[in-house]
């Protein structure tokens, strides 16, 4: 595998913008921690989207102004947020009723690995001695109707994150619908993993070379 350093790809904000463009008007969306949090800032004007955070808020708004933080109004990443007019609070069992009961339309999650079959690994590297922590990730992929994975195409060490088979412990099997990376947007279909869009300068041949899973166009 040869990495072409001249290809810059999309930056984090551009990736988040691509995801935001695919979130339709009127949907209920759960955003994971990290890059997914950026997505809310790019939803196109005219679309009304309600953000769910699994610790008990539907109608999550942006971060509060400095000095107005409330430690009892936080998101799943335990950061201070606000509640929009029309928001509601609920307990954890109700929150996961929304998730597992297929009431949430879209979830945007980070990924350690995604397989060519749509398997997701995003909670543990399985290293001995590491402290496992799963949070709500397994519930989200089991219950939310559409799962968007947003991730860099390669690891920091230059290894492919889109693989034939995940080597890390799974979060869920065959759960991802679309992958958004710095190099491309990839859709899972019955016939395999299809390339929908590539970042400037990226060719299909190059993309396949830096992707372990088989791609189609």
């Amino acid at each position, binding site marked *: 595998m040869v990495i072409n350093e001249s290809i810059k790809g999309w930056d984090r904000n551009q990736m988040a913008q691509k995801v935001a463009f695919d979130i339709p008007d009127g949907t209920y969306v759960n955003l994971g921690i990290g890059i997914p949090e950026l997505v809310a800032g790019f939803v196109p004007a005219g679309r009304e989207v309600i953000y769910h955070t699994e610790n008990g808020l539907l109608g999550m708004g942006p971060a509060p102004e400095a000095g107005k933080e409330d430690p009892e109004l936080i998101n799943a990443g335990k950061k201070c947020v606000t509640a929009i007019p029309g928001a509601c609070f609920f307990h954890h069992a109700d929150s996961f009723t929304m998730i597992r009961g297929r009431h949430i339309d879209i979830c945007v999650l980070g990924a350690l690995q995604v397989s060519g079959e749509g398997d997701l690994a995003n909670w543990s590297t399985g290293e001995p001695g590491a402290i496992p922590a799963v949070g*709500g990730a397994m519930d989200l992929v089991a219950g939310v109707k559409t799962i968007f994975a947003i991730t860099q195409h390669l690891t920091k060490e230059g290894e492919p994150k889109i693989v034939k088979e995940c080597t890390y412990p799974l979060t869920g099997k065959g759960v991802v619908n679309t992958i958004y990376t710095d190099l491309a947007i990839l859709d899972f279909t019955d016939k395999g993993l299809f390339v929908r869009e590539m970042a400037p300068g990226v060719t299909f041949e190059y993309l396949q070379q830096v992707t372990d899973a088989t791609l189609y166009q």
Partner: protein
Amino acid sequence: MINKIVKSTAEAVADIFDGAVVMISGFGEAGSPIELIHALIDRGAKNLTVVSNNTGSGHVGIAALIENKQVKKMICSFPRTTNSIVFPELYKKGEIELELVPQGTLAERIRAGGAGIPAFYTPTSVNTPLAEGKEIRVFNDQPFVMEYGIRADFSLVKCKTADRYGNLIYNKTARNFGPVMCTAAETTIVQAGEIVELGGIDPETVVTPGIFVKKVVEIPNPAEESKLVKENRRYPW
């Protein structure tokens, strides 16, 4: 006369015994009943199994309870958080057990326990290491994993407002696990920011009906865990 109000946190936790299963509300610091936890540290009950979403941060609250060697086992979904130091150290030394449970499964296991449901099937964790060794059953061509309800001897819960019947309302996302934990313990002990007269809470807005609550103690200005952590405070002070 029914009066669930007790005068002190010490009185509230006085019955917690060695080996008890204790649920503790909160998602990080939001909803964590820090004054009740500190009273449990003073009480000194050991070999506890604690059910809580996280393992605390710094050296106060749940982290201090763990650091004081009172916890044998944690049942939680996310044992490492920013500023979580105590649990990771003990876990790496093999001095504390961990049962890792997906967050929604944890909430539902508590809800089921409180509702008299011994076990249930969920799609969460199927085909992952967390389903290993568990019964799998297929419904409508889809596999589900069986999970057991959890009941506790005690629940420690924080809320915003209570009355002497034990009716409760919560504050924003500090509600989280409180309402389900109230239902799942033999003895539910609550710290409330304020206690109001009967009728002071609109019946339409009661979140936890008083029947689920045994004791209420008023803590008007609860400590903020993140501030204590920032100041590097340790409990016992």
